[in-house]
């Protein structure tokens, strides 16, 4: 099997999430084939002439065989994706990488800490955990973004809050003129004080800028959370997704195949990271 050979996926629908972030619902064109993936993994999305980039799944696998990616337009490929319309083709390779520990954290309280589009890889975990809600204890979600307008998936927050034993706390760095915000302002770690969860048993899942994950992980360890139960999702540029191009190496780890989801303790002491 040639892992560098992309499959064609039909763009079924798009949905704007924030001014520069859009969700793409896709289905493989090849007959009945379904993409078998787990929350936390990623695909290499590509367009001929634009190259490829690693993009995480933003929803769990769907009954109808579709899968969803949510992309922020920041580079050549991601800006190219924004020009596509339903009916167009996106090339996909994958799924690649490790997944969130959905099964290992069964029965535990879950603390999810997201920053900006770092919410995107966490959302499939959150939605899957809601689907099997009784498998987990409390779920506390802390979500920070630069501005209220960048709180991705905010149209779903009411439904998230309506789940049993679930708390969603939001914070923003700043409120631009014209935007309305009654909630918290400040960094996401500022929400720890309002978080009622037992550090002795809880599992933590976090994704966001590395500098944010640094303060999240270290702040939680100071609050007696175990580094073995803090799970982080990292990002680097990648050309292959298969551990060959070398770009995503962090010390001895290949983020594409050993990650992107790691236990925080696996990465301790490594250079060239902000963690």
């Amino acid at each position: 099997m040639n892992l560098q050979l992309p499959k064609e996926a039909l763009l079924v629908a798009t949905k704007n999430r924030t001014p520069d972030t859009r969700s793409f619902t896709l289905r493989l064109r090849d007959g009945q084939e379904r993409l078998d993936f787990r929350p936390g993994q990623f695909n290499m999305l590509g367009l001929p002439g634009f190259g490829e980039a690693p993009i995480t799944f933003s929803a769990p696998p769907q009954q109808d065989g579709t899968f969803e990616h949510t992309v922020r337009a920041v580079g050549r490929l991601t800006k190219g994706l924004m020009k596509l319309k339903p009916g167009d083709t996106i090339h996909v390779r994958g799924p690649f990488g490790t997944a969130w520990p959905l099964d290992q954290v069964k029965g535990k309280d879950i603390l999810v800490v997201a920053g900006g589009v770092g919410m995107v890889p966490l959302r499939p975990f959150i939605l899957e955990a809601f689907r099997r809600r009784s498998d987990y204890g409390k779920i506390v979600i802390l979500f920070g973004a630069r501005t209220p307008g960048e709180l991705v998936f905010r149209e779903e927050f009411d439904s998230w809050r309506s789940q049993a034993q679930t708390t969603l706390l939001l914070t923003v760095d700043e409120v631009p003129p014209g935007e309305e915000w009654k909630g918290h302002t400040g960094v996401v770690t500022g929400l720890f004080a309002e978080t009622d969860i037992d550090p002795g048993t809880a599992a933590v899942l976090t994704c966001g800028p590395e500098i944010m994950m640094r303060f999240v992980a270290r702040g939680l360890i100071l609050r007696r959370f175990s580094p073995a139960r803090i799970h982080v999702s990292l990002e680097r540029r990648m050309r292959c997704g298969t551990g060959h191009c070398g770009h995503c190496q962090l010390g001895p780890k290949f983020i594409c195949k050993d990650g992107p989801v790691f236990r925080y303790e696996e990465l301790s002491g490594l250079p060239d990271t902000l963690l």
Partner: protein
Amino acid sequence: MNGQVSARIVKKESIETWINDLRRDYEAYAPVAAGKVASFRRIERAAEIDWNYSSTTIPPSKIIYAPQQSLVRFVKSDKGYQVEEDAAVIADRALLAVHPCDLHGLLVLERTFLGQMKDAAYERVRSRVTVVGLNCQTVGEKCFCASFGTGPFFGFWMRQGPPFGCDAILTDLGERFLVETFGEKGEMLFVKVKSSPPSLDDIGEKFKREAAAKERFRKTLNTRDLPALMRRNLYHPTWRITGEGKCLSCTNCTMVCPTCFCYDTWDKALLDLSVIERARRWDSCQDERFAEVHGGNFRSTHEARLRQFVCHKLSYWVEQYGCFGCVGCGRCMTWCPTGIDLAEIAAEIRADEERK
């Protein structure tokens, strides 16, 4: 490959005849004298081969893992771009007179490309390549393969027997060669060559020459506890002093390394956009942009990049692949314009720790 090993004695002139005949079925690549340093080139006649070469600038593993390679093509049709696997015809190739350090370089490189996840583009080329080694009796001043057990003669490495990494290996015994073949493919290569069975004296002569070659090493790298030593010293001052003081980030070290595998990809299009080809080319962790991401660069300093190269080869690699990423060929230090020497860095770090 099976473990069948056989040995025979072949006169030098018969080896040359064999190579000239081989040319009918294979593109043959061998070390050719070119200025001060030999280089692996496509040869037409056995007489072109420099049997006494010491090292080459570009390692033979990078004849298989070429500087650029096509990965996939997108061909425009009325239904959009159709994906096509690269189907260019690949000729059978023979890599001849490859020294053991470079045979091991190939073995190490293949732990990346032919490991759990296979690189199809590499595999496609590799499957057409026959490798014939040459035990090395020309130890150079920067050579330290003996420190890694990857030379000067090809033997057991990482508990793998010799039948891995090459199909046959030659030992120059003067006017005749000892030819050891591995597996059926190696045996078939020499089945028509005029040869005689080796005598005990011939085998003795091989060991004598191996012992003599080992005597010639002036350079060593102490590998005892080396991966852990490097990991304990990720913040040693030498990274800053050597990195910022000497490293130019020219990427020479990675270009000439037999085990470096990193690549970048790019899409190149015909002007009418009817065909777009996605290709790869060697990339380097020493390039300033290598670890760039949106909004930053995880290795923006010479210090961080030098540490990445040296610690990858001497430490991280062991965790990734169960072997060192260095085979002691000496190329990185030979071709470093400011003489940065990874063995000296490791020795400096070890000496500092022992002083404490």
